[in-house]
């Protein structure tokens, strides 16, 4: 095994999967929102829903395309770079991911074609059905991925035979409590991402003086949904923390920045963990809170990192920091969603430019929260790739050379950077252009700060022709 090839493979996997998760995180929520819009359009017949649907569908198309192509890579990278892992755990991970492909990918792919190109070729009910099927596909895909990853985090229901992880109890593998706290956590995160992106877009349009009904619907639906989901997300986040506490104590200690056993344990709010001295610099601690968070008790003993031999400890700094960033993002999002919803209900939001700017600028928060959340999960479980059973260092393709790994890393880096730049640019341009208006549906009490014709000439005259 080549140590450089191992490091490069880890960087490559981290890079390609971080790149990939951005798009599903966005499109899972967006697909659900599109289904709701299309259903409301069919029910009410209001053009505003159709205009929004057509508009977000274009953005969905670009993001979905990037999600698909970067996802195909993931399915093969297990074999190219992690051949020992894919061979040993193939009997478990292979069937799980094959269920993902069978139940989700073909569903998404077939109905995505109908969604983009088939509006005029199929009856309205079938079009709505296709939208729902794409949405179902994205959700199923997330489900199987979470089952698969949860098994790697907490392997259950297996036997080790002749160097293979052989499935012993599929019900335990799929229907364990860890999956059912992590899958909702991920799904809610995706819905929140969709909600914030939609609300931020609405805020942006109001800021530039656009007072159409589409804008109001975006702002309100986005903010209300986020306001409702965020408290639920905090609960599921706590449940995910519970499984880490019970099954991955070293990861939990790293997240908490706890080096020694403590009873009762304090909670490090901020600080800078230093592995060399096994202590935190600049730490701010709250006594007893650590025991409350870890075990819901005032006096429990909580485990510190020093209980684990150095070769079994995760790197501390990354899980410690990324966890705090994730939670921070979540709390800021909660504040933005609640305050924004409150102002919206009181009909004061559209005049509050500071709040509109805050909502607009908060769109990266859910993405950052998802990425950092995954870094906590994946870096925190090191040095294991299958927790407690197979080390990452032993999972890499044994004959992979550093030059080969370097070549692929550079190629992936270059191509991803290239398509990401153009993809974001195209999405930005679609967002800037805004929805094509199908009819004039002005907003009650709208008071744009400047004449719309000056702000955005092409939007001044609503296109009544359209579809």
């Amino acid at each position, binding site marked *: 095994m080549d140590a450089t090839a191992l490091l490069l493979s880890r960087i490559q996997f981290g890079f390609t999967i971080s790149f990939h998760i951005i798009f599903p995180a966005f499109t899972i929520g967006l697909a659900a929102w599109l289904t709701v819009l299309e259903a409301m359009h069919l029910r009410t017949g209001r053009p505003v829903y159709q205009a929004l649907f057509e508009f977000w569908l274009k953005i969905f198309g670009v993001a979905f395309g990037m999600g698909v192509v970067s996802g*195909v890579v993931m399915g093969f990278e297990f*074999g190219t770079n992690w051949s020992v892992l*894919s061979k040993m755990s193939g009997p478990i991970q292979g069937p799980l991911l094959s269920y993902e492909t069978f139940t989700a990918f073909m569903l998404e792919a077939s109905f995505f074609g109908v969604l983009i190109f088939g509006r005029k070729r199929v009856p309205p009910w079938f079009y709505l059905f296709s939208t729902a099927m794409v949405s179902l596909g994205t959700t199923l895909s997330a489900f199987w991925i979470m089952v698969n990853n949860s098994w790697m985090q907490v392997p259950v229901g297996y036997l080790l035979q002749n160097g293979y992880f052989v499935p012993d109890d599929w019900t335990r593998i799929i229907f364990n409590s860890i999956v059912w706290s992590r899958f909702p956590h991920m799904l809610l995160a995706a819905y929140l991402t969709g909600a914030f992106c939609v609300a931020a877009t609405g805020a942006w349009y109001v800021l530039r003086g656009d007072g159409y009904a589409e804008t109001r619907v975006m702002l309100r639906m986005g903010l209300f949904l986020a306001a409702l989901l965020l408290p639920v997300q905090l609960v599921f986040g706590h449940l995910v923390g519970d499984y880490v506490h019970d099954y991955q104590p070293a990861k939990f200690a790293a997240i908490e920045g706890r080096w020694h056993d403590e009873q009762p344990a304090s909670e490090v709010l901020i600080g800078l963990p230093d592995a060399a001295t096994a202590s935190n610099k600049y730490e701010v601690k709250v006594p007893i809170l650590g025991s409350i968070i870890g075990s819901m008790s005032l006096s429990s003993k909580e485990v510190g990192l020093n209980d684990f031999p150095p070769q079994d400890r995760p790197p501390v700094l990354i899980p410690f920091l990324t966890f705090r960033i994730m939670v921070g993002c979540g709390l800021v999002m909660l504040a933005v969603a609640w305050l924004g919803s409150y102002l919206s209900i009181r009909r004061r939001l559209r005049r509050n430019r500071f709040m509109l700017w805050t909502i607009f600028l908060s769109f990266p928060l859910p993405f950052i929260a998802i990425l950092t959340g995954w870094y906590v999960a994946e870096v925190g479980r090191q040095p294991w790739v299958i927790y407690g059973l197979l080390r990452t260092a032993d999972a890499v393709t044994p004959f992979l050379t550093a030059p080969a790994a370097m070549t692929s890393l550079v190629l992936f880096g270059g191509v991803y950077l290239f398509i990401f730049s*153009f993809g974001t640019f195209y999405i930005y341009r679609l967002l800037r252009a805004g929805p094509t208006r199908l009819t004039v549906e002005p907003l009650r009490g709208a008071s744009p700060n400047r004449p719309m014709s000056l702000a955005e000439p092409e939007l001044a005259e609503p296109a009544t022709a359209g579809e």
Partner: protein
Amino acid sequence: MVLFWVALLAVSILVYLLLDGFDLGVGMLFGLTRSNADRDTMLSTVAPVWDGNETWLVVAGVILWGAFPLVYSTLLSAFYLPVVVMLLGLILRGVAFEFRHRATSPSRWIWDLSFVGGSLVASFMQGVTVGALVQGLKFTDGVYAGGVFGWLSPFSILCGIGLCLGYALLGACWLVQKCHSEVRDAARRQIPVLATAVLAFLIIVFVHALIENLPIMHRWLDRPYLFVFPAIGAVAAAVLASSILHHNDRWPFFAVAVIFSASFGTLALSFWPYMIPFAITIDEAAAPHASLAFMFWGEGLFVFPLMLLYAAMGYRVFGGKVETKPGQH
């Protein structure tokens, strides 16, 4: 159970070859026309279905992983660079469908280029891996020992070119079936050239196998019934020639699809019972029964037919010839 998954794997690979084959082929032919209107037409024949077509590659990949983990891990790691380059090709062509439509005319050439280049590179690399498999990879004690470039040989490069030609032929037949006027006529003129090139390629491969005395040739002498497949292929080739002469739009695609299936059948059966020729057999590679059964009772028995159903639904919704006016995104 093992046989079921071998069969399903074979079906998935064949469906992939035929479906992504034609859209990769259209991608390569896309580079041969200068007219923007023709390009739009060509793209619109594959745009609604390409994603589903490419999914069959993932289907084959995950069946391989779930049912034959040893082969999945061995093949992908042995073909490290070809797989990576193929994936990058598929990425570049995949995003081109959406991006080309979003780009303004001055920058459209970037996505035209990435569509053609990506299709070409992906097809070539697929051919190279098949060629290298036929020729045989180097193994020591069941572990791949061929090094980073173990797959590279004149023969594998020849197979890469051959598969590009084959996909282009399939793509041309698809265009004949789906288009009117200029695009169809251009494709109709390309078919004889491509068909001749593919035939020449098959002859060269055969002669090469004879001269090099590839182990795979012995299978042929042992199993004379294998010659049924080339015979079917020859009949299909005759149908192709006749349908082109009679300006029939429907039959060329099916004729070439049969030629592809016959070639695939030939190859698959001459590998039997090996999955990686003369190193790993089907039984050695098969996952434990608990894995195969779990896959069988859910996805094999129920989801697979459903998948075929909605893949077919896509082709039904977008059936018939495409309109030849540009910009129908």
